[in-house]
């Protein structure tokens, strides 16, 4: 049909003679390219400053080049070892040779640090061997190495080196989930005293859920009040929500320290009122209680704002209609009003939960020993233990959880409906 029109009538053209269809296609293409060119600079900027670093972190969580770089020949020889008894004399010889190389110092240092994460005897073993290796002039190297340190005679030591030889590893993820490799390379649970991360992830989830519920319980009544008051007074009260929202996080954390500490304002007031005696001041900070109270206060505006914006759109006449049809106030509120606020509840809860699960500053400052969450351990491994691989693995697991939550959020509310207040 289209062809018939083409041949039958004169082709419609623009002023310069190109067919209209072609000109339109070209104009749309240009417009698309132009739109993309506007976005391109930011896209490039975000890619370089943010997305690539995130992927860099993902790759760091499986990357394991240290053994390969320090003792490449021994690593290659060990790959063929069956894991029974001790490796052959060749392996011992090449290990001795590679450990005695002076230009390899830095790599061997890194390997020692890496292997030390798997078994805390490696750093001293390698340092000791490196110091004394020069005395070993000739074979048999097996006896010479074992003479330096009897650990070289243990299958376990060689097994760990063999397991850590490939350039990629899952061991950081295993560690992040309290698991490790045993002698034979099977995945087993860590010894009891080293099992902390699964507990910590669970604790982080519980605390985040607790904070979310606390925020919801506190935010629901005031959001309802804000949404139903006349706008002039409602906006005035809204400032009481927005001011904390805009106040620096550090300021709010500081004020909770001022209020909650043993010689703080609340304890002083209680002593003054005679509720508690001077010796029995309540410990409300540097523990989990402090973390939960401060986090609830800090995250509450994120619950109020989405709730408020949803509640504002609900017409009061529904409630009146329910009342006039004979529902008592409670039934009217629970069965007519509350179902309509579900989108706001969902949005606020997911937002608060996601923010809570990655919280670092507040637990670090007011959490004390037992108020630490998963992000504090990520920071610990980055700054103190320098186990960056484990930090990256913990971060990746957390990130996966958060992205799953966002996917849920997108399904329920849509990312585009994100309100900033």
């Amino acid at each position: 049909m289209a062809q018939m029109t083409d041949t039958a009538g004169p082709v419609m053209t623009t002023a310069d003679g190109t067919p209209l269809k072609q000109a339109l296609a070209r104009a749309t293409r240009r417009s698309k390219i132009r739109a993309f060119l506007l976005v391109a600079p930011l896209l490039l900027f975000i890619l370089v400053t943010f997305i690539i670093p995130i992927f860099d972190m993902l790759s760091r969580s499986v990357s394991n080049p240290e053994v390969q770089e320090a003792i490449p020949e021994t690593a290659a020889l060990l790959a063929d070892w069956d894991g029974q008894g001790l490796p052959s004399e060749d392996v011992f010889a090449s290990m001795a040779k590679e450990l005695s190389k002076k230009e390899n110092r830095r790599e061997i240092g890194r390997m020692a640090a890496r292997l030390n994460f798997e078994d805390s005897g490696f750093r001293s073993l390698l340092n000791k061997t490196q110091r004394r290796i020069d005395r070993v002039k000739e074979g048999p190297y097996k006896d010479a190495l074992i003479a330096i340190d009897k650990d070289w005679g243990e299958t376990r030591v060689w097994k760990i080196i063999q397991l850590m030889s490939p350039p990629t590893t899952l061991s950081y993820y295993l560690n992040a989930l309290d698991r490790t490799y045993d002698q034979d390379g099977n995945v087993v649970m860590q010894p009891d005293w080293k099992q902390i991360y699964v507990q910590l992830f669970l604790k982080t989830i519980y605390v985040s859920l607790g904070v979310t519920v606390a925020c919801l319980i506190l935010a629901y009544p005031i959001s309802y009040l804000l949404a139903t008051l006349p706008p002039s007074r409602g906006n005035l009260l809204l400032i009481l929500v927005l001011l904390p929202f805009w106040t620096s996080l550090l300021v709010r954390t500081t004020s909770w320290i001022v209020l909650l500490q043993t010689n703080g304002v609340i304890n002083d007031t209680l002593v003054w009122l005679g509720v508690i005696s001077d010796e029995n001041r309540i410990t409300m900070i540097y523990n989990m209680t402090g973390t939960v109270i401060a986090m609830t206060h800090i995250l509450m505006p994120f619950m109020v704002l989405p709730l408020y914006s949803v509640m504002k759109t609900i017409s009061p006449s529904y409630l009146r209609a329910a009342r006039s049809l004979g529902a008592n106030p409670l039934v009217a509120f629970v069965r007519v009003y509350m179902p309509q606020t579900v989108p706001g509840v969902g949005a606020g809860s997911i937002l608060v939960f996601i923010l809570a699960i990655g919280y670092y500053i507040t637990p670090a400052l007011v959490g004390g020993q037992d108020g630490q969450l998963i992000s504090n351990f990520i920071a610990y491994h980055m700054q103190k233990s320098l186990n960056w691989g484990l930090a990256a693995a913990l971060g990746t697991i957390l990130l996966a959880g958060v992205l799953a939550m966002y996917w849920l959020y997108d399904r329920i509310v849509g990312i585009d409906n994100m309100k900033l207040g």
Partner: protein
Amino acid sequence: MALPSYAGPIERVWYYAYRLICAAIFFFLIVPILVIIPLSFNAEPYFTFTPEMLSFKASGYSLRWYQDIVNNEQWLHSIKNSFIIGIAATLLATAFGTVAALGLSRADLPFKRLLMAVLISPMIVPLIISAAAMFFFYSAPFGSDFALTHTYAGVILAHAALGTPFVVITVTATLVGFDKNLIRASSSLGADSVTIFFKVIMPLILPGVISGALFAFVTSFDEVVVVLFMAGFEQRTIPRQMWAGIREQISPTILAVATLLICLSTVLLATIELLRRRNERLRGVTY
């Protein structure tokens, strides 16, 4: 939400009880912030109200902690740093973000959802993860020896990345009410695209751009996790200095700084509110 005339006694009691509950919750929200302000004028080095303060004697109050800020080299340096880093990051974020928002609000942009997801990802990813990832990468970008950690550039780039989503979101929201015919009209009158941008589009979306910029500024100004990992002693900002103050040598100087920050956030809040109202008025939305 006045009490209806048909309300029974139980409903009356509940009405006042409910107001009381709400008052208590508002108290919980605002008092922690307000309590800092009088304490920052404490004459003694305590974090609590002294008897002199409670009896409103002049001797109980002083400006010594404010003088402490002015006399302290470290605090002054951190205030300067916060503004340098904040303003530089805001400029970067606002420039990139505004231009991108223009593209994002065009109907014919391909892969819009994907692009949007990538561009707002710095807001979605928990800060601890962003900070860790940026620290790993910036300490040796692409395996080179050119470390951006412990430099102003590194902190500024990281903060700009964290601030752009706010600019993108606010400016895109402003552009929803933007009449595209204005662009067609001005280009039919012979304006080139740069002129159109600065003379037609910019004046209309300015409130959105400014509030986006303020969000970006606050993000940088308040940010401490990236600074903790990335900045050296030279790049310490106000929040970093407060962090050190809370952890190491706790003194009411922190309360004085906090009071100043509360004043600043009040000003920012007022500005944002005014801009939002102006924008809604321009778009004919009233309430």
